[in-house]
Each structure stands twice: as structure tokens, then as C-alpha cells.
């Protein structure tokens, strides 16, 4: 390995995924550098969230390789994969907090299950993470008592609790009003800078994507069609990227789809 270039935190090499006859990913290659915030954009159902599940090893690709640091996720044994997952935090679209456990217990869960820390140590870490996301006051509340934005922040705290190297965000601002959406974006930026963590953010919300991203990738029909810095991305000549960014109904994206019929 060349020492002058930093090693990739995550690398996908020609990843293909097929469910029966349906091809979801058709040769996706991507690399994420340390402390980068990569935004993966694309239409609904294009396979953006699937990429996150592949990185976590929850889904297995039909072909290709996925690396996280020095580990090839696709070849890891169950036990090792579970260990590697502790270095990856995941924030789900609808937070996925355990509804039967309090906020404190949700955040403490990986510490209780995977470490030998004492209760006092766990409480100190939970308080610290809740403080980081500004939600310390909700420590003893149940998830059902919280709003969507609050749940999202708690799930950030849960993703950070094991001090991961990488955080995966699945539609972090989906279903939130514009103000809370901006707050969440600011939180992603500040957390990734404070914790020096690498992030992959999946979204199709343009404002949010350009606010948080340090690198952008566009997924279209199972392939990455453009990767680059946000500024370069905005000036892309690719008609698909241009149409996606402008939100226009005219262009190649809707051609031959049911949505095209609906717009006529």
C-alpha cells in the first residue's frame, strides 16, 4: 500500500446485487476516505439504503467485494462480522429505537451487551453522548414520548456510543420539517467533526445533501454515474444528474417509467 495516500475507510468494488430477476446494483464501485462525508443520492428505490446494508454485512452482494478498513466484509465469519459492526454506527430512516426500552437503555444497549463496563461508566458515556446531541433531559423517557426529530437525535447518540470509525445515515432528514431538518444536518456536521468520524449519508433531499456532503455520488439504475465534490457536482453535464438536481420532470430519469405516464 502506498503510504502517501490515505487508506480507504470503505471501498466497494464492482458490487452487484440481484433479488431473483430484479437487478438492484449493477457494478457499483465507490471509495470513502477518512473523515469524508459521502452523500449518496438517487431516486427512491434506486438501492441507496441497500448500499448501507451491504457495508454493514446485513445483505450479501451477488458479486463484488466490500471493504471496511482492512476487513473484507463479504468474507468475514459471523463472529468477526459482529466485532467489526461495533466500529460502524447506523442511523435509520425512522430511528429504529427499541420501543420497549427507555432512551437511556437504548443508548446503553451496545455497551451493556458488548463491553465489560460498569453501570457507572455506562451512565457516564450515555450522559456524554446525550449531551452531544442536546437530549440529556430525555434520558428517562420512552421513545413513544418523543417527536420524530428527537428520536433521530437519540439514534445519533446510539450510533456514537461505541465511538465508531464510520457512521451510516439512512435518510437522516426524511419526514422532518425544514427547520428540524437543518438542525439534524448541522448535528451531522458537528458530530462528524468533533468525533473525527467518516460518514456515508443516503438522501434524496438536495438542500440537505449539499449542506452536509464533502463528496457526492449519484446512483442511477444500479450504477454510480457521477462522483465528485459538491461544487463540481452542481455543474455536472450528465443529463440525469442535471435533471435530478433541478427536480425537472423533463429528462431521461422518468423515460419509460410509470411516473412518466402520471406526469402527462
Amino acid at each position, binding site marked *: 500500500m502506498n503510504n502517501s495516500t490515505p487508506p480507504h475507510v470503505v471501498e466497494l468494488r464492482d458490487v452487484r446485487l440481484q433479488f431473483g430477476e430484479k437487478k438492484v446494483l449493477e457494478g457499483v464501485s465507490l471509495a470513502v476516505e477518512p473523515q469524508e462525508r459521502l452523500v449518496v443520492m438517487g431516486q427512491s428505490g434506486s438501492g441507496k439504503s441497500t448500499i448501507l446494508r451491504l457495508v*454493514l454485512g446485513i445483505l450479501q452482494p451477488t458479486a463484488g467485494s466490500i471493504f471496511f478498513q482492512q476487513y473484507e466484509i463479504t468474507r468475514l465469519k459471523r*463472529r468477526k462480522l*459482529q466485532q467489526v459492526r461495533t466500529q460502524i454506527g447506523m442511523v435509520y430512516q425512522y430511528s*429504529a429505537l427499541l420501543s420497549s426500552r427507555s432512551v437511556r437503555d437504548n443508548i446503553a444497549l451496545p455497551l451493556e451487551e458488548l463491553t465489560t463496563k460498569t453501570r457507572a461508566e455506562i451512565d457516564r458515556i450515555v450522559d456524554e453522548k446525550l449531551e452531544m446531541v442536546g437530549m440529556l433531559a430525555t434520558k428517562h423517557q420512552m421513545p413513544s414520548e418523543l417527536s420524530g426529530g428527537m428520536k433521530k437525535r437519540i439514534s445519533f447518540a446510539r450510533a456514537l456510543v461505541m465511538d465508531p470509525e464510520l457512521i451510516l445515515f439512512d435518510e437522516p432528514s426524511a419526514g422532518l420539517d425544514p427547520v428540524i431538518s437543518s438542525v439534524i444536518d448541522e448535528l451531522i456536521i458537528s458530530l462528524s467533526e468533533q468525533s473525527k468520524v467518516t460518514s456515508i449519508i443516503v438522501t434524496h433531499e438536495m438542500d440537505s445533501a449539499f449542506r452536509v456532503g464533502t463528496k457526492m455520488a449519484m446512483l442511477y439504475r444500479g450504477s454510480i454515474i457521477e462522483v465528485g465534490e459538491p461544487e463540481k457536482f452542481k455543474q455536472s453535464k450528465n443529463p440525469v444528474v442535471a435533471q435530478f438536481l433541478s427536480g425537472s420532470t423533463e429528462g431521461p430519469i422518468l423515460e419509460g417509467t410509470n411516473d412518466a405516464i402520471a406526469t402527462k
Partner: protein
Amino acid sequence: MAEAIPETEENRSFETNPVVVVQGVGQMGRSFLAEVGGMFWFIVNTIAETTDNMRRGRAPFRASSFFRHSARAGVGSVPLVAMVSFFLGLTMALLTGYQLERFGTERLVPGLVAIAFTRELGPLLTGIMLAARIGASFTAELGTMQVSEEVEAIEAMGISPLRFLVAPRMLALVALMPCLSIISSLAAIFATSLISVAYFNIAFVYFNDLVLSSLLIRDIVTGIAKSFLFGLLIGAVACYRGLSVSGGAAGVGIATTSSVVTAITAVIAFDTVFNVVYVVFFP
């Protein structure tokens, strides 16, 4: 041959082509075997993941989780199991008593009910009641967690859902089933004692003697061994169905129904197999 049968409204709903019928039966058999295999590996993987943690000197799951499920599955089921068994014991004692009274052999009633419940009906009825009450609850709970991505979130943290979610539930059912079977048998025997005293002039002391002299240790051991097996079956079916849910709220409903039906059928089928094996090898 397939071409010979015209495609009409009548033969569209009922397939008459024997090749297609055999194909259908084959497919059903294949999916049945796949289900059985899936459930078998589900149990094996749960045990493997749980013991894996123990080998590394860690508790397999939190004791509080086990006790919570035990209280729900066991303590919470005591009134239902005791009441149903009590009423069935009453009915059984009355019906058999009146028949046997015609031959002057009503003193056989206490032994008959005691053996039937200790060896057969106690575990079987408890199994059916727990499959309906607790199996459905476990499936619905895990199914809801599955559709709301909670199970995946647990997996993404590096925690095994089999160890964290399934093992304490299964162990709670395995540990509590024998206790509930014993409660079921005691409730039925108590009901029989009331009928014996009230209708057949059998005093409590004599009733006790009749029960104790007719019950063998092997009847009790058989009943308890079956209970362990039924507990494992109900727990495995309920959790397997719960974690296999897909398709949102409707999927949870379908899985819950399927869990209850599968668990009850499996309990009755295994009871039959157990009895056949027992009678053949330990006559």
C-alpha cells in the same frame, strides 16, 4: 396431455392434470421440508450463539430479560392453565364416573384422571394454551420489531438477535412449561377429588390412596419430558415466525396466525410421535 384439457372456467379453479397435481404436491412437500429445516437451523443457531457468549465467559443474556419473559409466559399463564384444567378435570371425572358407576368401578376415576393428566393431557393442554397465549404474543412482538427495523438495528450494533431476543424467550418457555403442566395436572386432580367426594362417595383420604397407587414415576417423568419438548417447540416456532415477518402490519397478522396454527399442530404431532416411540421402545 396438458394440451388435451381445454382452458375453461370450470377447470381453471380445480386442476385436473395429474402431472400438475403431483407437481403441486411436490412443491408443498418441498416448502414443508424447507420450513422444518429452517426451524431446525434456527434452534441450532440460537443455541450456538448463546453458548458462544458463555464460552467467552459472558452471560448469554440478561437475567432480568429471562425473568421478565418467565413472569409473562409462566406466572401470567397460571390462572388460565389452572382454570381450564380444573373444568376439564371436573368434566372428565363426571363423564367417566357415571359410565364406570354402572359396572361398580367408579373408584377407578381418580387414577384414570391422574394418569391421563400427568402423562398426556396436562402437557398437551398446557402446550396448546401457551401456543395460543404466549406463542402469539412472542410472534407479534418480534414481528413488529422486525418491520420497524428494530431487529436489524440490534444486528447492526453487533449484537446477535438470536442471543438477545430469542434465547431468553425460548428458555423461559422451556423452563416454565413443566411447572405449568404440573399445575394443570394438580388442578385436574383437585377437580376430580371434588367430584369423587360429591358424587361417588370417595373420601379425600381414599382418593389420595387411589391416585398415589395408580400413578407411576414414569408417568410423571414422561409428562415432564414432553413439557420440555413442547416448550422448546412453541418458543422456536413463535420466535422463528416473528423474525421471518415481512410486509408490514398485515405480515405481522399473518405470521401470528401461522405461529399459533403451526405451534399447536407441532405440539400435537410431536405428542403422537413421542407416544408411539415411548410405547414401542419402553412398553
